[in-house]
C-alpha cells in the first residue's frame, strides 16, 4: 500500500490547480491520479481560445491554459500516475487504483481531493425518439474525435442544445468544411456564453432555433434526416411546426453531469441540485478529509473559476493535513438555502466562526433579469444585499459576504433574487 499526505483524483484543471496549491501551502507528499495518458483533462481537446481571461488577462486556448499548470506542477514534488483509473474510495480515504503497470493497488491518504470533472448527458436521459443509426454523437466526443484524433465526424450536421460545447463544435465543423444546418435549443434562451453565440453561430450564419427540439430521427445505418419541432411553454412539441433537415450527423450538447461514482462509493452525501457533493465553505465534503472542487462539484462556465475554486480546496486540504487532520466541522454550522430565483449554491454549509474574513458563495439563478438585487437573509432579517446589472442562468454568480455579518446567526441563511424585471 502506498501512503501519501494528499491524493488528488483527476489531473484536469481542477486536480492540477488543487495539487499545485497544496504544494504551495506546504504539502510535499502528493499523488495525482489521472486515467488519461496525459494531464490537462478536457482542456486538451478544447483547442479554441477564450480561456484565462479572468486569471491571466489574456485569451489562451485550452491546451495553452493547461500547459501553464502542467509545467508548474512538474516543478513540485507531486507524483503523477497517468493511465491510472481509480475504481474505489472509502471514507477512511483508502483509494483502489488500477493501471497496466502495477495492476490493482491501494493508496491511503491523509486527505483526498475529488477532481474527477463531469461527463456529457447523452441520448438516453433526454428520451430522443427515432432510429438509432450511427452519426449521433455527444458534442464533446465529436470534439475529441476531431481535435485529438483528426476525424471529421460528418458533412452535414444538426446540433441539439446550445450549450457552449455545441456552439464551439458548430464553428469547428464549419471551419473544417462541414455544413451545420441548425442549432436547436429546447429553452427560450441559450445556455451558452454570449461570445459563443456571436463567434460560433452569427459569424457563420448558422441559425439558432430557440424553443425547438428534435422530434424524430431517420436512418437505419447512417443518420440521414432529423426533424425538429417548436415546443410550447410546457416544452411539449407543437404539431405542424416540424422542420426537416437532411443530415448525416446529430450532435448533442444537452448538459453535463458531475462524475460522482466514487463519491457515492464512499457514501458521501450528494446535493441533488448540483449533482455534486455537499460541501462546507472549506470545500470539505461531509466525509472528513475528503474535499471536492471543479466540475465534479458543480458544473462551471469558465475554467478560470474552476482553477480558483480548486486552489482553495488545495489550500484547505493542506491546512487540514498540517493541522493534524482535525475536522473543523465539529463546530456549529449553518446551511445555505435556495431563496427565490436561485437554483443552487456552493457551498451548501458554512462553519460558524471559520478562519476567513469573508464567505464566498457561488450560485445560479433561475431566469434572466436586469437591475436585480441579490439578498442574503436569515428568517425575516436581511443580512446583506448585492446589486447586479444583469443575471442569467447560463452564468454562475458569485457574492462575498463579510463573516462579521454572520456572527449571530444560528439557523440557515437563504440567497434570493429580487428582480428589477425579467428580460
Amino acid at each position: 500500500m502506498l501512503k501519501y499526505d494528499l491524493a488528488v483524483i483527476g489531473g484536469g484543471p481542477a486536480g492540477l490547480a488543487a495539487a499545485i496549491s497544496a504544494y504551495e501551502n506546504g504539502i510535499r507528499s502528493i499523488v495525482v491520479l489521472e486515467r488519461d495518458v496525459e494531464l490537462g483533462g478536457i482542456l486538451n481537446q478544447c483547442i479554441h481560445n477564450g480561456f484565462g481571461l479572468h486569471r491571466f488577462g489574456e485569451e489562451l486556448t485550452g491546451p495553452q491554459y493547461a500547459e501553464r499548470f502542467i509545467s508548474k506542477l512538474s516543478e513540485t514534488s507531486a507524483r503523477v500516475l497517468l493511465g491510472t483509473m481509480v475504481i474505489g474510495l472509502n471514507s477512511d480515504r483508502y483509494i483502489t487504483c488500477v493501471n497496466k503497470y502495477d495492476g490493482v493497488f491501494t493508496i491511503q491518504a491523509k486527505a483526498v481531493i475529488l477532481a474527477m470533472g463531469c461527463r456529457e448527458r447523452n441520448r438516453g436521459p433526454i428520451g430522443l425518439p427515432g432510429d438509432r443509426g450511427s452519426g449521433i454523437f455527444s458534442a464533446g466526443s465529436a470534439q475529441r474525435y476531431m481535435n485529438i484524433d483528426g476525424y471529421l465526424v460528418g458533412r452535414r450536421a444538426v446540433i441539439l442544445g446550445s450549450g457552449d460545447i455545441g456552439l464551439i463544435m458548430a464553428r469547428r465543423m464549419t471551419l473544417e468544411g462541414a455544413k451545420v444546418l441548425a442549432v436547436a435549443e429546447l429553452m427560450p434562451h441559450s445556455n451558452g456564453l454570449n461570445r459563443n453565440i456571436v463567434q460560433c453561430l452569427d459569424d457563420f450564419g448558422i441559425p439558432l432555433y430557440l424553443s425547438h427540439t428534435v422530434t424524430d430521427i431517420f436512418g437505419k445505418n447512417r443518420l440521414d434526416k432529423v426533424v425538429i419541432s417548436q415546443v410550447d411553454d410546457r416544452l411539449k412539441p407543437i404539431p405542424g411546426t416540424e422542420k426537416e433537415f437532411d443530415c448525416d450527423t446529430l450532435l448533442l450538447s444537452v448538459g453535463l453531469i458531475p462524475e460522482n461514482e466514487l463519491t457515492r462509493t464512499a457514501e458521501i452525501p450528494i446535493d441533488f441540485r448540483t449533482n455534486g457533493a455537499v460541501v462546507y465553505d472549506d470545500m470539505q465534503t461531509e466525509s472528513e478529509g475528503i474535499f471536492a472542487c471543479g466540475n465534479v462539484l458543480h458544473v462551471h462556465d469558465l475554467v478560470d473559476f474552476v482553477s480558483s475554486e480548486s486552489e482553495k480546496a488545495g489550500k484547505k486540504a493542506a491546512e487540514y493535513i498540517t493541522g493534524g487532520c482535525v475536522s473543523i466541522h465539529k463546530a456549529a454550522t449553518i446551511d445555505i438555502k435556495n431563496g427565490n430565483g436561485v437554483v443552487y449554491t456552493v457551498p451548501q454549509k458554512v462553519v460558524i466562526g471559520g478562519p476567513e474574513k469573508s464567505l464566498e458563495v457561488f450560485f445560479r439563478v433561475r431566469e434572466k433579469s436586469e437591475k436585480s438585487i441579490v439578498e442574503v437573509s436569515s428568517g425575516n432579517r436581511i443580512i446583506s444585499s448585492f446589486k447586479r446589472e444583469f443575471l442569467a442562468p447560463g452564468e454562475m454568480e458569485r457574492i462575498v459576504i463579510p463573516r462579521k455579518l454572520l456572527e449571530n446567526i444560528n439557523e440557515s441563511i437563504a440567497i434570493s433574487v429580487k428582480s428589477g424585471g425579467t428580460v
Partner: protein
Amino acid sequence: MKEFICTVCPRGCRLKVDEKKLTVTGNGCIRGIEYGKNEAVNPKRILTSTVSIEGGLHRRLPVRTDIAIPKSMLFDCMAVIHGCKTKSPVIAGQVLIENIAGSGANLIASRNM
C-alpha cells in the same frame, strides 16, 4: 447604427455603434469601445484549429493565430492550415507558418508535442 453583443468578456454588453461617428454606447468597460469600433469597421477573430503531426502523442497538434485576423480571412487561413504538416517535437508557441495567408498573423503551436 449597428448593434453588437460585446464578446470581450462573458458579460456580453449590448453595444450600439454609430458607424459614421464611430461612437460606442452600452459598453460596461473601456475594452468595449475598441471592440465595438472594430466590430463595425473590421471585425477580427483569433483562429484556432489543428494540423497534422508526425511522431507526436496524438495525430493532431492544436494551433492558433498569435493575433486576431480579419473575420473575412478565416477560410483563406483554413485552406493553408489544411495543407500544413509538422513533425514532433514541437514547442508551445513555436511559429509553424509566418504571416498565414497574408493576414499578418503567425500560426503557432498551442502546446508542446
